[in-house]
């Protein structure tokens, strides 16, 4: 704060009685809170209203696999399946690595080193997703193609790996927080009882921290579901269910990549546009559900210890 504005603030302090100022602060805070709730509700409401045309238009194969706007087919199953599939792959990659690294950092390293490692990891969480996307296009998809001897590495697996790398820092740092939050004296007591290190972790620390870890996982999943650019560049954008169904080596489509590719070319107000909005409504619903769940886990106190 500069000197002049500090002076102004002081003058303001003198000018108004303390209670009035408190009221103003309170009103401002309440206003902000209401405003953010209103914004979220307006977004949800807009999505819902804009989805109505496709929901009302009958015979559009909404719950199907055929996407062909020119013939009035708007099957959302393929992108929806792609989103969930990619999310699962990302989870399978990120969660074990994240959990083990978090254990390593929080249980075996000194607190100084821990802070250093964590701040580096948090830097990773701040890298813009398009950068990950470019790395995915330039290197990762070629490596994957070579590894599996494929024609193209723009496949569901590549998108899953990339997303796994992207959500790793988020998951890792929150998991590590959960582990470090377990009081040091629990560890010391357990050790003094003669427990081995792995027993201390398995029986004392993990039960205490598992709620926080679950919350971290759900928050990371939310990020994975909402990611657009990186996925769009490496997934292949093919509106088709993989065949066989759980073949990660085929190209696919997620809801986000679908939206990224098609929103620009659909006319505002058309059924095509409405179908895209409906997809985003589903996506938002899933993410909100995940966030509420993770909030529940992250704030719940560990009970059964």
């Amino acid at each position, binding site marked *: 704060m500069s000197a002049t504005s500090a002076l102004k603030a002081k003058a303001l302090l003198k000018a108004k009685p303390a209670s009035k100022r408190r009221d103003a602060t309170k009103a401002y805070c309440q206003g902000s809170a209401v405003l953010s709730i209103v914004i979220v509700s307006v977004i949800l409401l807009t999505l819902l209203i804009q989805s109505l045309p496709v929901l009302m238009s009958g015979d559009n194969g909404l719950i199907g696999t055929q996407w062909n706007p020119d013939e009035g087919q708007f099957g959302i199953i393929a992108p929806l399946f792609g989103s969930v599939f990619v999310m699962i792959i990302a989870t399978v990659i990120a969660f074990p690595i994240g959990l083990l690294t978090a254990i390593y950092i929080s249980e075996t390293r000194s607190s100084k080193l821990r802070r250093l490692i964590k701040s580096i990891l948090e830097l990773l969480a701040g890298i813009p997703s398009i950068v990950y996307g470019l790395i995915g*296009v330039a290197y990762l998809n070629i490596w994957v193609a070579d590894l599996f001897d494929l*024609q*193209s590495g723009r496949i569901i697996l590549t998108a899953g790996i990339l997303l796994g790398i992207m959500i790793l820092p988020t998951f890792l740092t929150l998991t590590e927080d959960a582990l470090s939050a377990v009081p040091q004296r629990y560890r010391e007591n357990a050790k003094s009882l003669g427990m081995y290190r792995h027993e201390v972790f398995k029986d004392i620390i993990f039960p205490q921290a598992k709620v926080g870890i679950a919350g971290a996982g759900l928050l990371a999943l939310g990020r994975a579901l909402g990611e657009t650019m990186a996925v769009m560049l490496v997934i292949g*954008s093919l*509106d088709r269910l993989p065949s066989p169904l759980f073949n990660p080596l085929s190209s696919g489509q997620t809801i986000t990549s679908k939206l990224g590719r098609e929103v620009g*070319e659909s006319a505002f107000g058309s059924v095509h546009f409405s179908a895209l909005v409906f997809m985003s409504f589903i996506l938002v619903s899933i993410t909100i559900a995940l966030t509420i769940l993770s909030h529940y886990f992250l704030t719940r106190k560990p009970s059964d210890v």
Partner: protein
Amino acid sequence: MYKQSVFALSALILAACSAPEAVNVSGSSTVLPAVSLAADQFVAETGTTVVVNAGGSGSGFNQLAEGQTDIGMMSRDITDSELERFKTIDFKRIAIGRDAVVPTISSEIYEAGVKALTLAQIADIYSGRVDNWAEFGGPDRAIFAVDKEASRGTRQIFMGVVMGNPKAKTPGTDLVTGSNNEEQTALTQSDSGIGMLSFAWLNEDVKGLSIILDNGQVVEPSLENIQNGSFPFVRDLLVITRGDIKPPAQKFVDYLLGPEGQKAVEESGYIKVSE
């Protein structure tokens, strides 16, 4: 006091938003290189800001129709359904150059001996009836068919000629890409790909296929064949404007048709429309 500062701030933001005389151009990534080259010179000469964005022909049309851009770039004509949607607006098509869509294959296949195909053979690939280069005298390798987003101008010209319908479904497709850049990258990275690119995007990694016509004549994708129209995929590169175009945007359109603009068209690898 708070009120005053809020007003001052919003006034500042509004002022920043309405920068005068900026010309926005948006649309086809095929037309983009020529327009953006011309825009650079136009900016240097007149000082008017020109912002050029890609996004595809369909996107360019929508943005123009909805008033989000001053000039749309399209590598195909406006369709009837598009005109139907915006009946009240008076659109103007202006051809600034000519180009060809070229069926393109990975250089590995080209060097292995596949240098020309008939239109029916290409249709077989995209409809999924043929999935091995061996059928066309190439190596025994699966064909990696690359398609583009349905609204892309290049795609609609290509499928219109090959499949008889610009919006044809292509069950043989293995990958869908967007811009010419993206498709070029996918074909370069593959060693058995086929796709469609604008003529200006061919290079040593992605080779243009010659087309075998019904009478057996083989037409190469050369500048000369595009100029005389014998290559089957020739098209006009268009810029689209509305009746209520702003004067600086109109000046830029005139510039595109003038000698400097036409030179930029030529330098981008396309064929100019006027001397």
